[in-house]
């Protein structure tokens, strides 16, 4: 059964969310310049801190689980690393990104010793802590990016970085910082890895223009990447089989987020408001599961409260429509693993423009699907 939550009594869109290691605290941005930290107490969410150092809308939040640090980036071209003080309050450190356009996405590396920020300045800032100067510094990956970076993901080896952009391409770069890291060992993506080296480049489509890239993810072994694009397609590329692309043209509205939940299955969600699971079967991606089982509109009378809630959720001003037939009432913009990892995840959380956070069970769903198949 899916759990749904809203925060602070409002239904403002949630730009993005991130969990701490114990999954009892969450950082969300309510579509403005603030980051709110909520702590869970049974089914109650209590606000514990508001991080309001950014001047403009927060675009990305990532919570380093093991070192318990939060990194955030925003349209004000800044990124901050937040550390918790002894009083439990979060203190920011400014990171010099050296960009002249909005930052759009941010991701900690798996070892949590560096992070990458994508931006509208057509470059990726790879940031690491320089202990000599007691300061976060950044190095740029510029070529051959010609457009806004919309999404980033790290390879499990802490070196390679996948980036999706609005020029319809997914690229894999080396983000090796020789000042702080050992020489990396070879991967199927390539052997030489100086900083900024382009390891692979995938066009969203070879036969036609295609859409811009909305989200990209490395698989748990790092040999595959999946991405979703604005042309309603899901793509998987495999380094182990000479970068062949498996492409699935779906019949749904475009997806905004994707994540691996096993070596062969991907969860995707977006404008169609319903998270879907696609599974690799041979050379094909097949829809294997719909997490949202709601089918019928809730009956039992329409209360005034429900009408206004529905208006608020869908950001409408006219009462011409009522509920959407799914749990999420508007586009889903963010997926996070809630239990397990990319190799085997049993629960995921999604948030979106309707201001809801939903925690989904994957296992029980797959089990019920298997049962249905047996019958």
């Amino acid at each position, binding site marked *: 059964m899916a759990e749904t939550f809203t925060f602070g009594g409002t239904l403002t869109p949630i730009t993005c969310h991130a969990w701490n290691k114990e999954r009892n605290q969450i950082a969300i941005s309510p579509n403005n310049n603030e980051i709110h930290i909520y702590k869970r107490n049974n089914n109650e969410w209590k606000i514990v801190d508001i991080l309001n150092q950014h001047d403009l809308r927060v675009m990305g939040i990532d919570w380093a689980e093991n070192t318990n640090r939060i990194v955030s980036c925003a349209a004000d071209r800044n990124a901050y690393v937040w550390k918790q003080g002894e009083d439990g309050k979060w203190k920011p450190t400014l990171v010099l990104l050296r960009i002249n356009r909005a930052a759009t996405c941010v991701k900690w590396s798996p070892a949590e010793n560096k992070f990458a920020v994508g931006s509208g300045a057509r470059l990726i800032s790879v940031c690491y802590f320089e202990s000599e100067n007691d300061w976060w510094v950044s190095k740029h990956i510029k070529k051959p990016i010609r457009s806004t970076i919309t999404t980033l993901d790290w390879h499990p080896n802490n070196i390679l970085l996948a980036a999706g952009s609005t*020029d319809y391409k997914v690229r894999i770069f080396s983000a090796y910082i020789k000042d702080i890291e050992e020489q990396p060992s070879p991967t199927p993506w390539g052997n030489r890895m100086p900083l900024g080296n382009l390891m692979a480049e995938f066009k969203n489509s070879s036969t036609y223009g295609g859409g811009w890239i909305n989200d990209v993810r490395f698989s748990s072994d790092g040999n595959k990447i999946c991405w979703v694009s604005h*042309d309603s397609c899901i793509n998987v590329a495999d380094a182990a089989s000479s970068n062949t692309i498996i492409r699935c043209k779906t019949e749904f509205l475009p997806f905004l987020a994707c994540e691996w939940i096993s070596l062969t299955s991907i969860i995707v969600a977006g404008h169609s408001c319903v998270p879907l699971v696609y599974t690799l079967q041979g050379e094909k991606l097949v829809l294997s599961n719909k997490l949202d089982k709601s089918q019928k509109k809730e009956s039992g009378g329409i209360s005034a409260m429900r009408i206004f809630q529905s208006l608020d959720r869908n950001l409408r001003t006219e009462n011409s429509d009522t509920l959407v037939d799914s749990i999420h009432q508007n586009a889903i913009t963010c997926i996070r693993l809630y239990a397990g990892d990319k190799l085997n995840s049993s629960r995921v959380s999604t948030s979106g423009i309707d201001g809801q956070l939903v925690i989904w069970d994957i296992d029980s769903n797959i089990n019920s699907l298997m049962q249905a198949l047996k019958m």
Partner: protein
Amino acid sequence: MAKNTSSSAFRKIDVDQYNEDNFKEDEADSVANTCDENLITNLLTEGKCIEALVSVLQNAPLRCKQQHVKDHALNVTLKVLLSVKASQMDQAVEILEQNDLLDVLMKYIYRGFEMPSEGSSGHLLQWHEKVFAKGGLGCICRVLADTNRA
């Protein structure tokens, strides 16, 4: 102090042109596909509408930059589309799906709406209904998102 004016002309200056790493579209095909009009007409007169449709969509000059080539292809495609009877549409859509041509067909349907002729829009709406039933919203999204237009 800077003077506060209501002029917003500066917003229209393309500052990106001074950047050397500007976004450039990938090179278009130097040799544009051209559909053989005689072949299509022959197929149509023989009543092989579906073969004609597959052939014309397979050779659609989507990546071509010359508008007159595209317009010519549009006219030929529309001629084929309008000569397929409503009863044959289901079979045609089935075959096009196997050939991965539904998205291309959808592009021409929307382009066809732009230049209506006598009775064409009603016929195209029937096409649209059948293609939508197979391809769903994703098919329409691919038409909207694509930079290579029909």
